[in-house]
């Protein structure tokens, strides 16, 4: 385990792409949190720590895609430069390669979680404890769900990387999958006259609903009750979490089978 971590450390701490994507993630998370804060002020929404955590984590969640792309590039470039093949030849097992990539992925997910958590606390300091309440960790339990969300996006990216093995095509498929899934969801909802929950069980839908913005949830709920059209109720938090974990396991198992069964 230590050996595999060291390998990944040598590779990625000297990679410019690594720093570009991690930097982009950090900058965009901060920018998105600032804009979220600005909008809350503009619409006169009273913020407390209990609403700040889900609100900012939800906003930061849209930047997980950068972490996904980073991990995808790191795997597909190993295929394209034949370095993964060289590792096997030099004495790693395919299982070792798989574990190494997942250790790297978990480290990235943990980094994202820590960074987002710190940024929320920093925002808390900026807004002021007198406004938000005395306990800065009120609502912070959602960070666990955010961790599952990041892992979900990463495991999906890893699956696409092992499936497609080409950096350019992999990124395109990964990016296009998101709107495609939404379109498919809309189509299914239309055909079923909004009488189905199926689109809510799709991977991207499950992952993006892992942490919901409470203010947004209130608006959606109000719109639903006012709408003459029947809108299905959202999945419960527990269901979302369980299905999210099932997707992570499925993507991880699929990635392992792809690596194990195919020639390098």
């Amino acid at each position, binding site marked *: 385990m230590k050996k595999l971590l*060291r390998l990944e450390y040598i590779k990625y701490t000297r990679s410019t792409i690594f720093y570009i994507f991690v930097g982009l993630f950090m900058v965009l998370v901060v920018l998105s949190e600032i804009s979220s804060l600005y909008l809350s002020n503009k619409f006169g929404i009273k913020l407390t720590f209990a609403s700040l955590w889900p609100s900012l984590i939800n906003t930061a969640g849209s930047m997980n895609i950068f972490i996904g792309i980073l991990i995808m590039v790191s795997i597909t470039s190993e295929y394209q430069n034949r370095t993964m093949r060289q590792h096997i*030849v030099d004495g790693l*097992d395919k299982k070792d390669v798989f574990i190494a990539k997942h250790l790297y992925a978990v480290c990235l997910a943990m980094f994202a979680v820590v960074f987002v958590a710190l940024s929320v606390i920093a925002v808390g300091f900026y807004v002021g404890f007198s406004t938000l309440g005395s306990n800065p960790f009120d609502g912070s339990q959602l960070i666990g769900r955010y961790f599952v969300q990041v892992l979900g996006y990463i495991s999906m990216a890893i699956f696409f990387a092992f499936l497609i093995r080409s950096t350019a095509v992999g990124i395109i498929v990964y990016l296009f999958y998101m709107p495609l899934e939404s379109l498919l969801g809309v189509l299914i909802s239309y055909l079923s006259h909004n009488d189905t929950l199926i689109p809510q069980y799709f991977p991207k839908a499950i992952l993006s609903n892992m942490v919901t913005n409470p203010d947004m949830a209130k608006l959606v709920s109000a719109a639903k009750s006012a709408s003459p059209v029947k809108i299905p109720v959202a999945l419960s938090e527990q269901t979302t979490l369980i299905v999210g974990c099932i997707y992570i396991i499925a993507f991880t198992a699929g990635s392992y089978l792809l690596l194990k069964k195919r020639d390098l």
Partner: protein
Amino acid sequence: MKSNNPALSEIVLSATGLQKRFGRLVAVNNISFQVEKGSVFGLLGPNGSGKSTTLGMLLSVLSPDGGTFQWFGEAADAAQRRKIGTMIEGPNFYTYLSAYNNLKINATIKEVPYTDIERVLRKVGLWERKNSKYKTFSTGMKQRLGIANALLGNPKLLILDEPTNGLDPQGIAEVRDLIKEEAERGQTIILASHLLDEVEKVCTHLAVLQKGNILYQGETEAFIKGKKRVEISADDLGALRQALQDYPDIEKIVEKDNMLLLEVKPEFQAQELNKFLAQKGIVLNHLSVEKHALETQFLELTSKS
């Protein structure tokens, strides 16, 4: 493939019935061979003959469709591969990492101390460029770094696939010298090449591959010495030809440019033939024995199949 040399008794690699298909194409067709310790074993064949596919299966990057193999008398696994230094299908490195850091990765995999990196980089003449990024290297330097990578940790076996590919004549000579140096100190080497000259100069044993089949395997010397060609001429070519019909060591006679070209058996001796013809009253005005070069043998063998 058994050697007469008693020192070459330990089997380093034993492959039996290896097979690999890519769709309808049979890339490797039920081949078996052994490599003994201390030998330099050449896998010789034209491009697409199955050399790299064979090595790919032996090094677990391709799954065989049939057959088994053992490294060092044990089941092939990652621990066995760590005892092997390999460069197959070109050097494969991280372009953004330095030479030193690229080797550090292999040293970590093989659990070799990082101090060995200096030894191998010096050996291939790249120590002064240890901090240069791989992408700044010339083709020759990349190839030498690939060999340094293979030499890391003093492996029990070296596997080099087309190690002189893309090199200029000086680079080719340097790489061949490195291989010879390793061979001279008793290193077991498997060398895959389509260059006959390379195999002839370096290998003690060889297997000739074509379309996934082994056409020959054995000692290189025996392969080259298998047949000789003799040019012979006398004033009366007809009488000479008639006399040769009774000589036992001749397999084939062809007349060309006022001379007879003879395909002879390995035991053929020129002085015996001369004596035989003299006894028949034929005086030769030309006799030359040409040892078949590997190229001639190879072309003959592959054209038959």
